[in-house]
């Protein structure tokens, strides 16, 4: 997956870190101290579909099947989407002042690719 660096318009991962102190959420979220709200942006030209970053994408597999059968995938739009997500563990207070530790799956975008 590509990292966005301001020089490419291709599908890439834009890093976006939010410090909980800056939004005043550090009073109820004990850990971690911030959240990587990364997202995907950029264009996906036809040749990018099926790039290594999205090899595991179900959608890419479908497009490839269309290709193999001689159908024209060029008419289908390719999307810049997260292709790898990771879990985030959070420790926080709930409404009843209990401490909750929760492992939240698919919270952080690790890689982007075209599908």
């Amino acid at each position, binding site marked *: 997956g590509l990292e966005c660096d301001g020089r490419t318009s291709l599908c890439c991962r834009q890093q976006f870190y939010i410090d909980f102190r800056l939004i005043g959420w550090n009073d109820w979220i004990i850990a971690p101290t911030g959240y990587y709200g990364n997202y995907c942006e950029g264009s996906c030209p036809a040749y990018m579909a099926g790039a290594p970053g999205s090899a595991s994408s179900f959608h890419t597999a479908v497009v490839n099947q269309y290709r193999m059968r001689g159908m024209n995938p060029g008419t289908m739009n390719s999307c810049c989407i997260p292709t790898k997500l990771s879990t985030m563990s959070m420790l926080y207070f709930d409404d009843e002042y*209990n401490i909750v530790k929760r492992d939240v799956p698919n919270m952080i975008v690790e890689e982007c690719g075209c599908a």
Partner: protein
Amino acid sequence: SPPSTPGSCTACGLGQREEASPDDSLFLEAVKRHILERLQMRRRPNITHPVPKAALVTALRKLHSGRMGADGRLQIPNLDGHATLNSRNELQEQSSEIISFAETDPLPSSNSRLFFLISNEGKQNLFVQQANLWLYLKLLPPGAGKGSRRRVTVRIWYREAGSGPGQWAWLEKRVELKRSSWHTFPMTQAIQAQFQRGERRHDLGVECQSCGGLAVAPVLVDSSDESHRPFLVVQARALDAKHRIRKR
């Protein structure tokens, strides 16, 4: 940066956050909503009287004992924002560990009664995998009891599943006491039954059998001793039958 003038703070212009553009604030709001949604919360909790730090630190230390770093600081795994899990199945499951601190029953006759407030957050279908009550049993100063006997039985009363008000069940545990220390009492079935009934309040009674003449007392909620405040630890897993895909 603007040139500094005599008497002005040269560092004042540094480190200031640029004002967020309208796009940024919209994005921030979207991220906030995303986090709350993933935690099954409608809004952020309103923290008006935070849990005393002593109670918090004790509970976390007890739960993560053996995971202290060389520098003596508490290390909580997987809380750096990223986690590595072993299998895909683990990724699909949302697990929660809830630490609830005891409150005392305001009724004057119930000085050995505790209650915990834990709701089935966001009405999600939480399955209790394990629940343990942590009690600190305190040896009173010598002379307050008969002396050398240190084996006691602690009985925990809880509301029986499907019972009416006033119907209680109990479990008990024999405890060998050498010094004042923490002890755990398994509460899995009792808490699971209350979660299934959707009850928010979990009443417990603590009774020390044959402790009358002994110098032993469970420390219940004592505002002057926050570091020994009883707590309940519930390990739960979110069950979502609609979206669960099992590999065969």
